């Protein structure tokens, strides 16, 4: 057993046993849902009501916040508020896409490894170990640098960073579920392995993956912005939050340029965290006890 296999994924195992009755839970879940749906609505309907266009020069250069420009304008006279809203169209689809891909790849490889064992397991898990031995930021940086800048390449980089986490998680769950009585019973009545994997094992393994995925979404949002901040994500002139913060960092005393995108990242990441917490309480068997 490798040392690294003991590296923890603690989110599910030590779920606090608070109930939905807790006011904290209620407030946070409601807040999480509200903010998430706010951003979703923005993302979908934005083009109809946005005050300006994200790439257009409007008003003067580096204007402080005012009623015309809620978060001021940047050096190219673009409205920061509008750009921040449009940023959701960059970050959110990418983040969700990364998680969906990572969960899919991780689930396939992890369940294969967990269910069949043998050489499949060794190969997959060694790959997982090696990948996880790299710090996520560094690996993503290296891959994104190798592929060149661009949101697409950052997307691949992040999938590469994230799939092993799910592979390990699913493998652990599958192994645990595999030995349960009803699975053994299914085996004993002659169900094929594929059928058992599909019908019995995976559905049970998926809940923790879903909970983790929601919690991880917030982290992906942050990593996306981080890569852009380092110049490895979105290319100009797209209004990506991390890239906007890079711009803002230059205009340190024109603080408004970086404030809005930062708040956007914060609210999105926080609401995903809230939702993940809520989901865990709602779905996790242990938490219900």
């Amino acid at each position: 057993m490798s040392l690294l296999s003991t590296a923890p994924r603690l989110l599910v195992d030590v779920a606090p046993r608070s109930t939905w009755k807790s006011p904290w839970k209620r407030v946070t879940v409601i807040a999480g849902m509200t903010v998430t749906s706010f951003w979703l609505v923005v993302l979908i309907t934005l083009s109809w009501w946005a005050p300006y266009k994200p790439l257009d020069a409007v008003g003067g250069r580096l204007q402080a916040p005012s009623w015309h420009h809620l978060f001021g304008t940047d050096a190219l006279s673009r409205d920061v508020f509008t750009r921040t809203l449009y940023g959701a169209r960059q970050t959110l689809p990418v983040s969700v896409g990364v998680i969906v891909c990572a969960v899919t790849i991780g689930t396939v490889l992890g369940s294969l490894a967990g269910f069949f064992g043998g050489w499949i397991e060794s190969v997959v898990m060694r790959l997982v170990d090696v990948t996880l031995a790299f710090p996520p930021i560094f690996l993503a940086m290296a891959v994104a640098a190798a592929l060149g800048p661009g949101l697409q390449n950052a997307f691949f980089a992040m999938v590469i960073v994230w799939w092993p986490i799910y592979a390990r998680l699913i493998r652990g769950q599958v192994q645990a579920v595999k030995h349960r009585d009803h699975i053994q019973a299914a085996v004993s009545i002659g169900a094929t392995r594929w059928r058992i994997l599909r019908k019995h094992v995976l559905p049970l393994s998926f809940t923790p993956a879903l909970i983790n995925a929601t919690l991880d979404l917030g982290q992906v949002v942050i990593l996306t912005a981080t890569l852009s901040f380092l110049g490895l994500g979105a290319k100009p002139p797209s209004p990506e939050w991390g890239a906007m913060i890079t711009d803002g960092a230059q205009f340190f005393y024109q603080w408004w340029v970086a404030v809005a995108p930062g708040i956007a990242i914060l609210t999105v990441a926080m609401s995903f965290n809230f939702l993940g917490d809520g989901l865990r309480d709602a779905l996790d068997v242990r938490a219900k006890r």
Partner: protein
Amino acid sequence: MRRHVEGRNWSKVVAFIAVGAIIVASCGSSKKSATTAAPTGTGSQSTTAPSGTTAPSGTTAPAGTNAPSGGAHELVIDRDMDINSLDISASYCDTCQIFNTAVYETLITVDPADPNKLLPRLATSWQANTDNTVFTFKLDPAAKFADGSQVEAKDVKFSWQRLGNLKGSASYLMAGMKSIDDSDPTTVVITFDAPNSAFLPIVAASYLGIINSDVATAQGATDAADAATADKAGDWFLAHSAGSGPYQLESYTQGDKLVLTRNDKYWGAKKPAFPRVTIAEVKDSSSQLQQLQSGDADISMQISVDAVGQLQGNADVTTKIVDSYNYVYIALSPGAAGGEKLQDVTVRKAIKEAIDYDGAIQALVAGKGKKQASPIPNGFIGSAGLPLPEYNLDDAKKLLSAAGLADGFELDATYPDANVYGVDFNLMMQKIQQDLAKVKINLKLTPIQFTDWITRINAKGIPVTAVYFAPDHTDTSQYIQYFGLIPNSFWAGSAGGGAAGKPMDNPKESDLLKQALGSSGDAKAKAYTDAGQQMIDDEIIIPIVNTQLVLASRTNITGMHYSACCNLDLGLLGLAG
């Protein structure tokens, strides 16, 4: 009801955070007194063992006649450093110019007030023969290296030959050198294959500073033809210096700071004012500004024009915005893969006319910059009288229609992700993208690392890119050698498609350069001006802004200046009062 209670909860959250902040704040302010007391405390510390390697202790300043002004004050300069080497013959960077000038000395130097005026330094006099192929320098017999030995002709020969043979980026300055005669220790005679009227300004370039050849040779340095592979002194130069300048290298920590100490035996008339000079790596403009305000730095070299306003009303700090010879430009490469549409010169002209220069200068440097006609920056010989680029959208559209491209097209714009001379390339390219969109040209922006950029532009060129340039010396020839469509010019090659393509060629420019190098005075100026017009007509290099420079220092620092050859000559700085 419940909702109401929750609302109150959240207001408590805010209150909690606010209280927390106040607590933290009060801790902070109580500690601050300790922080502000620091400079005095640390000043006395400098008597404890210097961490450097060979430097003499800066506190044992000799009393009496040699006593320098400035006393014990140590100069701190904030700068985002770009040092590629501290070996003067291998170095090539803006910070290198400052270091080289402070530690080594050139035979002649440039008057900061007038870049076209040359002043003596190690040489007391110099002369060129009539066809500008042979140059003779008389060395000052008083000139001494920091170790006390005399600066002799053999040192000059060694330094210049080594510069040429190490084949660093600055080695082009020695191109065409045929021989150096050092038979008389105080006389240097250098002969060129072809007329080189640019050589006197080149001698003032910081890279041509003189190394103590005995010391360097002992450390494995060589000036032989195979120096590029045989020279072993590169590492030694990272921690040591062997020059005659007012300061010596004490230590260099990459990414942290470059520390110089006073050369106590400096032979020149103006004694170095500071026992120690520290160039601290401070990357961003805001930190540089903060440190200057608090007095933690005496000079901050890269304060952005948008931040300068913060310094207004601060009597301790003096800021001056001066013209510089630095500029940023975009380059169009017809020979590059994907640049086929650019092969038509009218298309390139249309692009040039579609750019809103005044708007760009406003957006990029808050108006603190000038338009520039050709690759020859304003103020250099040959720059005067050339037509400045004009924003003319209608004409641009007309030109594109004429070229059959009224419906627009797409161009790849890959550029280094850089921020130079206060210009953020991302911003600049977005601005140009905005402008070109109006003539339906769609620029696809890709910022990449500088190394990657060099690789690409050398391999097969880049259709549209952005770069910057600062002068190495005060002669215009460098611009034609680098930007002109002449053999071995960087841009002739790159615009032609790099290694995969064929260099572009404009024979008139070669001729004009030859003409200029063989003449002087008005004839030379005329040749350079004509070459400038040729380069304008090439429509390859489009200067966007000739930036101005923020000179920001504590008010008690004297001698702040910007020099075309040397950036900032530390030897000229002093302390008032």
